[in-house]
């Protein structure tokens, strides 16, 4: 178990055709025993970051420290890590038992009896005791995943690395393995860095989420924090499903400190509490609301609601997803299943001020969150320092 620190870690791929900055000055402090999920769209540098920690990619610039010790130059085998790959990377010519024991044979002085004991223990934890003498090719995807995880657990490393380990499983199994992995983490308590492109996985598993885009850090925070107080439009859009609605609006201030957000077919009054978070010179903003925070309400007050037309109604059982047309742009609302307007119908949608987010229209940075506990300035500053210094 150990603490992992990344200090201004940069990775540049220099090919003859082009120079790609895959990861740019990434700084992160990961506490002992923490479960960190690194999330972002493909090509954001999350896998490269993980591979640098593993020692499978060189670090162009910056420093990686594990338990206070610089590991940049150490080869993967000397880093005391274990990794689970998306493709599982099991050795096809070895049995499950041999796959799990291989690392212990190679890099520890344990005798065969001790190794066998640890393999059986890990197999029990993963529920694969009856597969120990089989070859990987005769296992299902889910079983292979368990073996790959078991192979990592048996090493009892300082650090676990997971590279999209559940991506090749079907949805149901993925959800099951998600809880399984969380359970194992709480049992063994080893520091874990888990890479995924699935924000739901990130939200459900992480102690803290690290969101990357185009190689640079966007936000680090607990799942609730990145959900309620995204630092910018990218994070707001990436976290949550279906993703947040954005409307370009102009901020008009009244003399008493309150104001109105005015856009195409959009007019919404906001209070002083929200506006005092925003610099008075700013007028072009992006209004954001999550689909689950908007609701259809025919009796809503006119200055606190918007009129739209229903495009499509998607019934998913527990909820309905309503796709609306707001001035030619799609606006998504998640409603309880009993609210099911007809397509083409005009409905009135409304939202609480507590749930709205305002972003700078030029930079995309968050300006204000309606969430009562939001301390936007602090969040933004902290993520700035982590990203830039």
């Amino acid at each position, binding site marked *: 178990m150990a603490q992992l620190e990344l200090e201004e870690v940069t990775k540049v791929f220099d090919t003859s055709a082009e120079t790609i900055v895959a990861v740019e000055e990434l700084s992160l402090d990961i506490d002992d025993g923490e479960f960190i999920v690194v999330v972002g769209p493909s090509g954001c540098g999350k896998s490269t970051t993980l591979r640098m920690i593993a020692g499978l990619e060189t670090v162009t610039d910056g420093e990686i420290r594990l338990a206070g010790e610089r590991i940049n130059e150490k080869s993967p*085998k000397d880093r005391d890590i274990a990794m689970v790959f998306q493709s599982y990377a099991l050795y096809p*010519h070895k049995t499950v038992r041999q796959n799990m024991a291989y690392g212990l044979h190679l890099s520890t002085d344990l005798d065969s009896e001790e190794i066998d004991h640890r393999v059986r223990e890990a197999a029990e934890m993963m529920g694969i005791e009856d597969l120990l003498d089989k070859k990987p090719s005769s296992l299902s995807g889910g079983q292979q995943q368990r073996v790959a995880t078991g192979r990592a657990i048996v090493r009892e490393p300082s650090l676990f690395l997971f590279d999209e380990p559940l991506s090749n499983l079907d949805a149901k199994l993925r959800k099951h393995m998600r809880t399984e992995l969380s359970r194992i983490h709480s049992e063994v308590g080893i520091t874990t860095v888990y890479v995924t492109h699935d924000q739901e996985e990130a939200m459900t598993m992480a102690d803290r989420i690290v969101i990357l885009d185009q190689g640079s850090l966007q936000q680090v925070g607990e799942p609730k924090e990145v959900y309620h107080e995204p630092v910018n439009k990218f994070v707001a859009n990436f976290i949550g499903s279906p993703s947040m609605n954005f409307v370009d609006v102009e901020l008009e201030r009244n003399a008493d400190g309150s104001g109105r957000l005015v856009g195409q077919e959009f007019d919404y009054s906001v209070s002083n509490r929200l506006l005092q978070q925003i610099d008075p010179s700013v007028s072009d903003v992006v209004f954001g609301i999550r689909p689950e925070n908007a609701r259809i309400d025919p009796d809503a007050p006119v200055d606190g609601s918007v009129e739209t037309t229903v495009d499509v109604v998607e019934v998913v059982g527990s909820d309905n997803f309503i796709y609306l047309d707001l001035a030619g742009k799609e606006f998504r609302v998640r409603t309880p299943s009993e609210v099911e307007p007809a397509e083409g119908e005009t409905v009135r949608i409304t939202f609480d001020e507590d749930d709205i987010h305002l972003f700078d229209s030029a930079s995309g940075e968050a300006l204000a969150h309606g969430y009562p506990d939001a301390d936007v300035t602090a969040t933004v500053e902290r993520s700035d320092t982590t990203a830039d210094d």
Partner: protein
Amino acid sequence: MLNDNRRSRVLLYAGITAFALFAIVPYYWVIRTSFLTNIAAISPDTGFIPALSQFTLESYTQIWDRFAFVTFFRNSIIVSVTATIISLFFAIPGAYAFARLDFPGRKVLFYTAVFTIMFPWIVLTIPVYEVFYFLNLVNTLPGVIIALSIFVLPQNIWLLQGFFRQGIPENIEEAALIDGHNELTAFLRIVLPLRLPAVAAAAVCAFLPAWNNFLWVLALTPDEAVGTATVPIYYTLGSDVLREWNVLMASLVLLVAPPVIFYGLSRRYVGEGLGGTPK
């Protein structure tokens, strides 16, 4: 439906039988002739299946008496086995690098290597002789070995890089690195054992041209004592006046036997290698 199936099945077997006969008859003819006397071999009275009384080992004993049989075959075995080993020694890492690593000039080097496969042997014979003469390698066994191993190298690289490109699970080397290997041991202990059938296939493909090579051996070894078996067999043809067909066929049988045995022994691996990924 059933009739249709049966008819196409009959046609299929008929086709296969015809093809098999076409392939097997020449071999049979070679073996048959090798056990006849010279006169019986060319006599039109000798049947397709000769009478038992006509069989003799005369031609084989003649070869034994007339030629330095042991020397030639020993040379052949030394040359082909060594050339196979040397070419694999260089082809395996080369092919692996072409297939799995990215380095500057990879494409240019690869196509240069592959391009040499398409070069006709005969065009290279004189320059190769010049070079080997300069290096004092003419008329030496190492000279023949070096020439043949270099000759089969490009085709081996090409063949093996195809095998290394597929059939190795993603990230397997990386998993090995994390498990405690370095790059070299990960390759030797994990990747190579996985692709052993492919290496066996490549070994056969290197052994055969080395064993069968005639032209370069003829050019590089004017002295018969260091030549391989292919060249002396050419001399058994004798004069144009009296060709000893039985002796020629007997030496042919002896020449073909070792590769057939070699293939038989490695068939299990080679079949897997050429057939695809082992399960």
